[in-house]
């Protein structure tokens, strides 16, 4: 359970800076976060580091679906991650961190 009172939200950018089904990278307290807008308009945020390749590239992957899961594929070696949980769907046991994301007054905000 997250305590909304103590939660720190960082303002990132206006919603329309995100293209549908693409991501952007942002710096949040020194950490790199990849933020995605899916086709239905929902927002997701995960760590920008590809845990398999070690490079900070997740925001540049292709966004899509696998079954019901909204996904992004690493642009380096194409492993697919569930945007909701950060789990890698191709390599059991591999995952990326997920961040809370919300929209306030048309601004995207992230918290850890």
């Amino acid at each position, binding site marked *: 359970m997250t305590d909304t009172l103590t939660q720190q939200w*960082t*303002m*990132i*950018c206006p919603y329309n*800076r995100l*293209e*549908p*089904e*693409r991501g*952007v*990278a*942002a*710096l949040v307290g020194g950490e*790199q976060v990849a*933020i995605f807008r*899916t*086709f239905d308009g929902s927002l997701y945020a995960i760590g920008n*580091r590809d*845990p*398999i*390749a*070690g*490079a*900070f*590239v997740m925001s*540049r*992957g*292709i*966004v*899509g*679906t*696998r*079954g019901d899961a*909204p*996904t992004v*594929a690493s*642009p*380096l070696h*194409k492993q*697919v991650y569930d945007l909701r949980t950060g789990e890698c769907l191709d*390599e059991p*046991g591999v995952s990326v961190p997920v961040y809370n994301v919300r929209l306030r007054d048309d601004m995207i905000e992230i918290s850890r």
Partner: protein
Amino acid sequence: MKNLVVVGNGMVGQRFVEAVRSRDTSGEWRITVLAEEGRPAYDRVRLSAFFDGVSPEELSLHTPDDEVDLRLGEPVVSLDRDRRVAVTGAGEYPYDALVLATGSYPFVPPIDGRDLSGVFVYRTLDDLEAIREFAKGRRTGAVIGGGLLGLEAANALRLLGLSTHVIEFAPRLMPVQVDEAGGAMLRRYVEDLDVKVHTGTATTAIRPRNDGEVHGLTLSNGEWIQADIVVVAAGVRPRDDVARAAGLAVGDRGGILVDGTCQTSDDQIFAIGECAAVDGLCYGLVAPGYAMAEVVADRLLGGQATFPGADLSTKLKLLGVDVASFGDAHGATEGCLDVTFTDPATRVYAKLVLSDDAQTLLGGVLVGDATAYPTLRASVGGPLPGPPLALLAPESEGGGTGAGIAALPGSAQVCSCNAVTKDQIIGAIHEGCTDVGAIKSCTRAGTSCGSCVPMLKQLLAVSGVQMSKALCEHFDHSRQELFEIIRVRGIRTFSQLVVEHGRGRGCDICKPAVASILAALGSGYILDGEQAALQDTNDHFLANIQKDGTYSVVPRIPGGEITPEKLIVIGEVARDFNLYTKITGGQRIDLFGARVEQLPQIWRRLVDAGFESGHAYGKALRTVKSCVGSTWCRYGVQDSVGLAVALELRYRGLRAPHKLKSAVSGCARECAEARSKDFGIIATDNGWNLYVGGNGGFRPRHADLFASDLSTEDLVRLIDRFLMFYIRTADRLQRTAAWIEAMEGGLDHLRAVIVDDSLGVCDELDAAMAQHVGAYEDEWRATIEDPERVRRFTSFVNAPDTPDPSITFEVERGQPVPALGERRPVALGLPTMGARQ
């Protein structure tokens, strides 16, 4: 370890070694191969392809194996059976088991003049190289022998540009395989190719000219045939010389006598392949030899296999004519019945031999159209798979050839080359083989002559395997089908396509594939609107992502030709942005280590200097490499650079199922390596030769000659159609080589479509290419001129001026390279140490 010595590294010897190696998991045998020929095993069955431009390397059957001691050019001269050693000129090799796989030698009848310069046989690659060399500048040729080999040799002489005669002692061509009527049909085909056929007559002598080289032949019917070169193809005899001298038993008509286990009269020695006389009978085909190889491999490792007897069926394409014979082709069985079908108009001849009650198929002959061959051959000994005439009639009249497959008994051999039965193939399918490729690697069926591949497809179909052509979970269609849907229905967006014809929201497989189709169908700038979301990162940032998340930049340098001024600009850009530079294999310069936000700045400089995108990031035309050609080179016969530049500018930006590479060489010396490209052009005295379907990479393949001596205009038209047809019909990520290989009818079909317009699509293909050429614009210029588009190029949306702190470099050989630091990749569940004792 025991010593296993193999004598001969021909087709069967090689298969034997592979069979032992794959079964001998405990390392029981140490293998030495003593080979007479100077090159490792090659595909003798396809020997004649050498004259179609297939290189010796492509014919090779050899897979390097450190555990096998292969000694080339070291024939065995004798066997000392008491001491159990094989003796060569270089030494002695002790054995615990010895396998003779010495094959056959060409039989040359004892006629005058057989030793003259200019008389050849047709058995090895060396023979063919010698024939090609000697034929240079000569005009006429004759082949003694009108059987399978003789006709292959005749075609070779014809391809070398000689006016060619064939002399056959029997009253018809290919007397062993076909009957009288089939022979007559075959003769008509052969004579149409301007090969003169003389049957029912013997060669009495080969006569020399004054200089001692061959001049011509005298025939027993009194005729004189002038010939500057003579090839003797009068049959083969088993190579049993070494065995004979060692006192092993031989057959009445030659051949090393063996029993059903391929053991000779010495129980430590085996004989396999053409040199072996199994119960007195030699087999001149490769399939029985492979079966023998498997028998001995099995026995040496404790098995009990025996030679199952052989199927002497053959299917050949000789001088472009399909000829097949199977089972009891000559109707030698008592009381058998013939059903024949002759159509002089389409020049098809077919005969089935049936048992006296007309219930059982015994054999048959097909000339001109052999589509029914695989089904028929597999049905020999069983009931007919359909009414005889329906089986024989050419496909156009009902095409009943597929009907029989379900009726075949499980024990029927579907692939005779590799002795694979229907049951084995069905088994493989049930174990999860879902396409022909999987069946090939699992059962070996279809890997030799390929004539059974249509049956493999049918078996997949009847087994209910939906040959899954589905692109991914979002579409049940293949790329080709999606292309047609998008084209015909005029679909412009991925969303419309996935809603109407798919499900979900796509993935990294279907999105770039659809993006490529939309681009090929001319929808302009690839990053506008919804298309932006389809591109993978390379296309999205118009640069190639590297392992550290930086990108590389490749400006187009058409044909590899560049001015000093432009070279200096590249150098300055690289220096100013601290980029690592490397010359690529495609005669361009690659600049590495750019961060996304640097890309528009770099390109601003490059575009101002007159550069444009090299599309190194796209599944698109990469480069048209060239040699310096007739402008400078003293051998050049055409302006290869000029053509390369023109082609590169014509096809730049063309999006395709996979990358496209090309090259142009200014003469036959081929310095530009055009034959390793998707389309390669080699200059001739009269114009250009076009080669298609080559590639380097994981499985290198030389391009095949597609058309010769073309004018520039004709050349460009053929390439236009070739590329557009490829873009329309290939699978996702299928290079042109694999595309042609998978195409039913292969290169001939491709020629029919784009030269003869057999599908009536050439106008459309031409129009599509014209549209591409007309609509081309440089993607990078279009990008940097539009601030909205440039905005995409930032590392961090909330800190546009901060460069990605994770990207750092160290210096290696004077240039920046990614600093690994803590970003060293994690091993995917693989232990990094301690795994090996």
